[in-house]
């Protein structure tokens, strides 16, 4: 197990940032999802051994966060949410410096920096001062410094924040590669439900510091018992016909959501559409969306 927490709790005075959190996270790409202020950053700082827990315990890479913070920070990389780059140095000089701060000898630090900046997609611009970089380039430098010492696990706090859609796609692609090509496990946070579906193997959802759900992405986005039907004319007449044929139907804009009792429903839809003389554009099983976690999950499970 990569990360295990047992009743982990953090209180700042009256405010409870993380509340009785018990979760086990295995290797791979894990998405930590929650609204802003849900306790994601606090949890990461506790897992780095930087904030002592008020109650409960946690291990990272089988090391106790309360006693082995230094050892954890040798093996883990961290990309903070906020800006953390000085403008007056080049990306190369800065990442070399951060590699040395992780204990790498000078020569190794330079070699690893050249490698990792190439992997995150910084080329000629890496010799220019960071002050002139775009948001996308800054995010790459932040990612580079988190990976330069070849950690076993990397914490990425809101890595897609502030990026345009193309930059967001690039970053998500990089995150997938960190795990698949580099063999480094990833814990990535986001307040956006949709975007992590594509890259995460597991999803942990927290709200107000409490665990809402910990599950594999496959479970969340599994096919549901609903068929989506789209035809080339307004859907309401067809809905009436299908209901007359004994199916439960919901009209959602131009689409129909038909409940799937058994496979005969497909035949009924097909026959009804043909009889009505309509053109069938699409008929597919709907996938669950991650947003439904919040609609259905009230209690941990």
């Amino acid at each position: 197990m990569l990360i295990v927490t047992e009743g982990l709790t953090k209180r700042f005075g009256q405010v409870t940032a993380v509340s009785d959190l018990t979760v086990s996270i295995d290797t791979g790409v894990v998405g930590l999802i929650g609204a802003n202020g849900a306790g994601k950053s606090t949890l990461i700082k506790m897992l780095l051994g930087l904030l002592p827990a008020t109650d409960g315990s946690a291990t990272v890479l089988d090391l106790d966060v309360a006693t082995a913070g230094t050892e954890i920070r040798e093996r883990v990389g961290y990309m903070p949410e906020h800006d953390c780059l000085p403008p007056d140095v080049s990306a190369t000089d800065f990442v070399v410096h951060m590699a040395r701060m992780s204990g790498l000898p000078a020569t190794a630090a330079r070699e690893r920096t050249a490698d990792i900046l190439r992997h995150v997609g910084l080329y000629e611009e890496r010799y220019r001062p960071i002050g002139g970089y775009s948001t996308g380039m800054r995010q790459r430098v932040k990612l580079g410094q988190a990976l330069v010492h070849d950690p076993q696990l990397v914490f990425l706090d809101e890595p897609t924040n502030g990026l345009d859609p193309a930059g967001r796609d690039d970053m998500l692609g990089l995150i997938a590669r960190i795990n698949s090509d580099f063999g480094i496990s990833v814990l990535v946070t986001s307040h956006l439900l949709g975007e992590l579906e594509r890259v995460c193997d597991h999803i942990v959802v927290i709200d107000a510091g409490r665990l809402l759900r910990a599950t594999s992405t496959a479970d969340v986005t599994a096919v549901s018992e609903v068929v989506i039907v789209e035809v080339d004319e307004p859907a309401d007449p067809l809905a009436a016909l299908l209901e007359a044929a004994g199916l439960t139907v919901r009209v959602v804009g131009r689409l129909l959501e038909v409940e799937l009792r058994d496979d005969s429903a497909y035949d009924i839809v097909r026959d009804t559409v043909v009889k009505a003389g309509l053109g069938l554009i699409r008929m597919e099983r709907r996938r669950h969306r991650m947003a439904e976690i919040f609609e259905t999950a009230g209690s941990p499970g």
Partner: protein
Amino acid sequence: MSTPTPSAGVIHDIGYRHYSGERRGRRYIRRSLYADSLRGAYGLGRSARNKITPAILFAVMCLPAAVMVAITAATNGSELVGEYTSYVLNLQMVVLIYVAAQAPALVSRDLRFGVMSLYFSRPLERVDYVVAKYLAMASAVFVLTMAPLTIMFVGALIVGLPISDQVPDYLRAAGGAGLLSLILGGIALVIAGITPRRGLAVAAIIAVLLVLSGVQAVLQGIAQAEGYDGAVYFSLLSPFTLVQGIQSSLLGGSSPLPEPPGVTGALAFLGVAVLLIAVSFAALQWRYRRVAAK
């Protein structure tokens, strides 16, 4: 490393390589942070703009020493023009501006741009950061003050003055420079560590040190004019005169200032110096405990 082909300059992706080499501990990290910070105090490894101020101040600090050597050579004097033991005191404005300009470059910058969160996520501890930055700042001031003294020393030997005449005062001045570096570095870092805003930190350090120097000079002047016995103790007010007092009473050498009387006076001066260093260090530790908790 990948090898670009000469014609196209294509970079071949050779895939990710894991690092299996040595990972050194906190001592190495502290030393690296010290070295990089000391370089940073002279703008090395920073953008060109950051090199200008320290380079100009370094030149201004050394220029009078070079001129003294030149005059000595030109006049064929049997003694070096100018004193090692009062050189730094006479050029205290240059040293003052240097610490005001560069202490914020060492610490305010890390606070301002959020770099602290990256340091704290690595295997160094808070105390490592404080020790490395403190020693780097003190070393930077030491380099600034020792450079002109060394120019005088080497110049005197080249001109052909006997080495035995030069060594004692050179070493006395070096002792004073070392102590001054620790005191000034501490005070400047404490002030710079309060604010992430560089301009504010520069102004605050100049203001504090200038006020201390000014108050010291005025009060000591009045007291001396009035013939007051305790006039010497006004030297405690400014780091420059404090160090000058310790240097002249414990190490010897000529001084334009009144000398602390006897053992009591010397111990009082030394006590204040040690206290200043200890309080500066403790204040930095306290300040960074709060930074880390954020």
